[in-house]
């Protein structure tokens, strides 16, 4: 934890207390004891939160009751397999089951029967399940149950505490893709629910899964911080390492799996972005940052290539953080100066359209995230001034000057001098 984190927390604590002391924020709080008691004693209260923090070990002698998600899964095998992952895999194969005319999936028409899963035949036998020949009733109890279970898993995905960098950055994107894409599609197309169930059975037999599905499985498991997921990924690595993306490998390396550490090390040693015919994979940033954050000079050419190849891309900004970590602070500052100059030009150009405002806000967020990464902060984002309402406007330079200032402060650690400089700029 950095001093600036502690400083910021204490600052927030003071401001919060000021609101309480001067604004009566705490005094108007109602007494909730009777309300909680009524809810607790009511039979229809919400079930316990399966993801609630575990009580301190020393204070929890009795084992917890099985969680709803664990109870829901009576199938032998790992109970932690997320339904959202199943949904995502089902979506990958949706065209196979229902969209044979999709040219992108025509080549997997010979996918093994297990991809449909034994549950597919179960579905046909069970009158409450629906066959692929007719659309199910979206409001059937089974569909409702599946939706509820999938949403439970989506919430579990929400609860994943992303640890470490740069896998955090990558995982956020994966999680967003899975959650939004899979669940949205499932809601739109209830007829694919049987395939979701079938996919769960497919997940339970990973050795018989096609490679494309296994890649999805690996990506999904990389989201799961549990020890079970960790062990399973190690097993999968032995069976089929080609199913692992660089992000997944880095995520495992960050969790201390030595074989994955060695793999990243080997990748850093062998990857030559400047070599003829060598392409720069989109997820190379993960591996390069992993190396850079550990001072590995071999990440340097990869990061430089990323900066060069993605000048208008946020990944280039993050790559410049890696360069700074390797002692090339000038590259980092040049990049920040360049981005700030772009922002300045946009703001000075006059009133921004809502689309331009979104773009400016996105750039500021990217800068803030990169700076947080630079400082080695975890889950840290730039905190805008109290008065900023989140909408950048021409003539209201406070927030982007703060961004600029924060970048300078990162470098100089001289916040007093920075404060004076910012005030002078604001008065300009």
């Amino acid at each position: 934890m950095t001093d600036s984190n502690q400083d910021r927390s204490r600052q927030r604590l003071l401001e919060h207390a000021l609101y309480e002391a001067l604004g009566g924020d705490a005094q108007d709080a109602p007494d909730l004891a009777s309300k909680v008691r009524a809810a607790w004693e009511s039979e229809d209260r919400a079930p316990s939160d399966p993801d609630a923090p575990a009580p301190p070990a020393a204070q929890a002698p009795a084992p917890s009751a099985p969680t709803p998600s664990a109870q829901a899964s009576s199938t032998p095998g790992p109970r932690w397999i997320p339904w959202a992952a199943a949904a995502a895999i089902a979506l990958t194969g949706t065209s196979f089951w229902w969209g044979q005319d999709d040219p992108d999936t025509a080549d997997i028409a010979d996918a093994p029967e297990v991809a449909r899963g034994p549950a597919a035949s179960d579905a046909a036998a069970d009158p409450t399940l629906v066959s692929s020949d007719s659309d199910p009733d979206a409001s059937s109890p089974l569909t409702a149950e599946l939706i509820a279970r999938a949403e439970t898993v989506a919430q579990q995905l929400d609860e994943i505490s992303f640890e470490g960098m740069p896998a955090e950055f990558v995982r956020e994107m994966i999680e967003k893709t899975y959650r939004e894409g899979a669940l949205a599609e499932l809601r739109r197309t209830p007829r694919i629910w049987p395939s979701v169930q079938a996919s769960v059975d497919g997940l339970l037999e990973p050795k018989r899964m096609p490679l494309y599905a296994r890649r999805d499985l690996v990506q999904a498991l990389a989201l799961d911080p549990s020890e079970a997921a960790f062990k399973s990924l190690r097993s999968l690595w032995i069976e089929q390492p080609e199913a692992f993306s660089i992000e997944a490998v880095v995520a495992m390396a960050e969790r201390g799996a030595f074989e994955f550490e060695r793999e990243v090390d080997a990748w850093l040693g062998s990857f030559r972005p400047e070599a003829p015919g060598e392409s720069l994979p989109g997820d190379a940033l993960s591996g390069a940052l992993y190396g850079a954050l550990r001072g590995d000079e071999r990440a340097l050419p990869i990061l430089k290539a990323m900066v060069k190849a993605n000048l208008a891309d946020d990944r280039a900004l993050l790559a410049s953080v890696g360069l700074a970590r390797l002692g090339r602070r000038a590259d980092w500052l040049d990049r920040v100066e360049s981005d700030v100059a772009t922002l300045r030009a946009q703001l000075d150009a006059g009133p921004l359209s809502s689309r331009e405002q979104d773009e400016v806000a996105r750039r500021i967020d990217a800068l803030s995230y990169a700076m947080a990464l630079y400082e080695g902060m975890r889950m840290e984002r730039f905190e805008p001034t109290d008065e900023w309402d989140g909408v950048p406007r021409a003539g209201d330079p406070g927030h982007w000057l703060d961004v600029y200032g924060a970048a300078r402060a990162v470098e100089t650690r001289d916040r007093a001098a920075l404060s004076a400089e910012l005030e002078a700029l604001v008065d300009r």
Partner: protein
Amino acid sequence: MREHQGPVRSFLRYLGCPRSEADDQVQETFLTFLDATFVLRDERSTARYLRSIARHRFLKSLRRLDREPPSLDLEAAEDAWRDLREDDSGRPYMDALLKCLEGIRGRARQALDLRYGGGLGRTDIATKMALSESGVHSILVRARRRLRECVEGRLQG
């Protein structure tokens, strides 16, 4: 519960939970707590466990609503709370703050009252006090710095 609900609510607000949602979050926190197999040992460990539940539930609600995570580093936030506000439900900190506020007078006090008592933004404060916005910003920054030094000094002393 009556002893802990105030600090839990306060902690949630400190993390950035909107006032309109704080009571619901407190209620959910206690329901989760009651569901858990937590063995009461002492008030401090109970308070810490309640805070961990509250933090967890708050993050969950943010993600469900697709909102940004808190700008605070949560580990540092918990440390600051434990260091400064955990004892006696945070009363010593608030007492020290009220004492220190007595030493803030004039325009600095006026700006603090308008900002934290009246909930006004920098523009409105500047209009009311006939100052530039940057002037208001400077006054508030200096006042907060003085207050923080005073409060933390009192707690250490």
